[in-house]
């Protein structure tokens, strides 16, 4: 285990850029910490934190200069591995279908937290693995008010799948770096660093461990897969439907929601046609459209579909939960619907009806 200082982090970014990577990392823009292409380590959000609550997200200045001490922002890494809109193919009058060219520039993700690293693994499971980005994870030492990764088993320590993992230490500001793969070791080679001392490692470990107890949210301690599978007739769906605007924000910010529609377009002459794929939401009425009408028209049925898929039928389809506990769906819900609260209400309703039975 080794130690990078703050300049070392800039070196790491520079050397990734020099080896032809598109480096994606957190940066401050539009009053939020967004994920964007970095041209240098100085763009990282030194000293910025966030205050989050249901339906609310505000940046705040921190008293320290921590880079990774902010919980999930409005974007996830999904947009870089599963773009919001992409061309699939085009065809001209010759009738041949030509696949769209893909940008093959290698990606490097800097500062991926455990929840989001798990989400990348889940997306790979759903969509098939594309070219793997270099992942520099960040163990979480400062969970936010909407976080519940420890309930979902995805954090605060980043799980498997990273090439390098950083743990941020303050006073003095430095990063414990651990190597996950030979690819990560190669990326680290040109970067100035020193060996970690025992107390530094211990301090890093204890900060990550203590983060477990500082989650703002917690999922009810029940088998969520069974709970949701058996709750299709719950009264709670009508209750949440009174509040849900079916806007689909939760699905857009969710790091694992993957649903797409295709769109076929032509130019005015009809000579040139293209197919595009874009993100859609199961909250849209058209999502389940069949001739004769949509399958899911009521808000209750659409919310039920989303939550049941996320927490239960995802296991049947893809072998894991679809929720990683990042809390984005709570923060960006305009009416502050809280997935942990809804799950708890369903669990309470279930245990109530079990007790009556």
């Amino acid at each position, binding site marked *: 285990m080794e130690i990078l200082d703050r300049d070392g982090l800039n070196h790491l970014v520079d050397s990734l850029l020099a080896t032809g990577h598109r480096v994606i990392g957190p940066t401050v823009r539009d009053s939020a910490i967004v994920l964007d292409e970095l041209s240098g380590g100085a763009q990282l959000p030194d000293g910025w934190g966030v205050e989050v609550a249901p339906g609310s997200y505000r940046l705040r200045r921190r008293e320290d200069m921590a880079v990774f001490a902010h919980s999930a922002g409005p974007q996830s890494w999904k947009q870089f591995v599963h773009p919001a809109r992409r061309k699939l193919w085009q*065809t001209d009058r010759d009738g041949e279908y030509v696949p769209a060219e893909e940008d093959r520039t290698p990606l490097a993700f800097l500062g991926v937290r455990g929840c989001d690293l798990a989400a990348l693994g889940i997306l790979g499971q759903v969509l098939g693995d594309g070219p793997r980005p270099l992942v520099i994870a960040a163990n979480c030492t400062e969970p936010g008010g909407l976080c519940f990764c420890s309930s979902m088993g995805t954090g605060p320590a980043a799980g498997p799948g990273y090439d390098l993992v950083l743990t941020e230490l303050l006073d003095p500001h430095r990063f414990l770096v651990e190597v996950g793969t030979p690819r990560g070791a190669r990326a680290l080679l040109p970067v100035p660093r020193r060996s970690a001392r025992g107390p530094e490692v211990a301090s890093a470990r204890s900060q990550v461990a203590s983060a477990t107890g500082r989650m703002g949210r917690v999922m009810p301690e029940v088998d969520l897969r069974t709970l949701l599978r058996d709750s*299709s007739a719950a009264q709670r769906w009508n209750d949440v439907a009174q509040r849900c605007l079916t806007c689909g924000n939760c699905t857009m910010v969710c790091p694992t929601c993957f649903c797409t529609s*295709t769109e076929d377009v*032509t130019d005015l002459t009809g000579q040139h046609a293209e*197919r595009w794929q874009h993100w859609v939401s199961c909250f849209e009425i058209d999502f389940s459209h069949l001739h004769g009408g949509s*399958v*899911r028209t009521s808000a209750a049925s659409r919310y039920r579909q989303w939550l049941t898929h996320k927490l239960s*039928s995802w296991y049947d*389809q893809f072998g894991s939960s679809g929720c990683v506990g990042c809390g984005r769906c709570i923060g960006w819900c305009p009416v502050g619907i809280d997935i942990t609260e809804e799950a708890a209400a369903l669990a309470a309703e279930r245990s109530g009806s079990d007790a009556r039975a």
Partner: protein
Amino acid sequence: MSGDPLLPLPYVVTDRAPETDDTVTLRLKPVRLTIPRLRPGQFTMLYVRGVGEIPISISGNLSVVDGSLTHTVREVGAVSRALCAAPVGTVIGVRGPFGTGWDLPSACDTDVLVVAGGLGLAPLRPVVLAALAQRWRYRRLILVVGARTPDDLLYRRELDEWARREDMAVVLTVDRPTQGWRGQVGFVTEPLSWLALDPSATTAFLCGPEPMMRFCASALLRRGILAGQIRLSLERNMQCGLGQCGHCQLGPLLVCWDGPVVNYAAVGALLTIKEL
């Protein structure tokens, strides 16, 4: 064959036969490359240039191996309207095959009961043709077909030929008879209550509107046929065919991947949940 399942292959319409007022059977031949062979029950995604793409079950005789595809399409939306109107010579994009098949061979040595409602006969036609082609493998072959009116029956000439055969039983029923109608009158579920069935050795294949399949399955359960002996073909919004777009979910199932042909034992309970 194309390596990319998202990329259509061009096929040309070589024959166009109207079945009813709103339904057409198209025969497609590959322009160059062919998609892999389909099994009865599977579907392709058909793309009409500039209009869009929809899933359509295969309805042809699948023992014909000249690379052609036969699809029966009913006009219900923009793409199906464009397909129905496509004249001979039109180039259509084809992807597939997708989904599960009827798995007729597993019904070997049982009675084969085929129940079709309306356009539901289209995906079942390859089952009947395959059973007739290897008639000795199966015991009785019973086909029950329901339609709104006699004019809504598909494959009319073929149905008449099948009805004349000694080695299969054909029951036709319509909701609204017209003059000269000599078949049954009533829903397709009704013959299921009086047909002579051997519940211990019958495999049922159902296709039609979802309520029709639910009622048929209930009628068959009442006759002592086990849920596991009933197969049905489901319809959902499908855009990719690969279990990746999310539209076709039915509870735990991705219908394009786990279906369209599913076992009633696996979906019976799901189909009773409204708006699932």
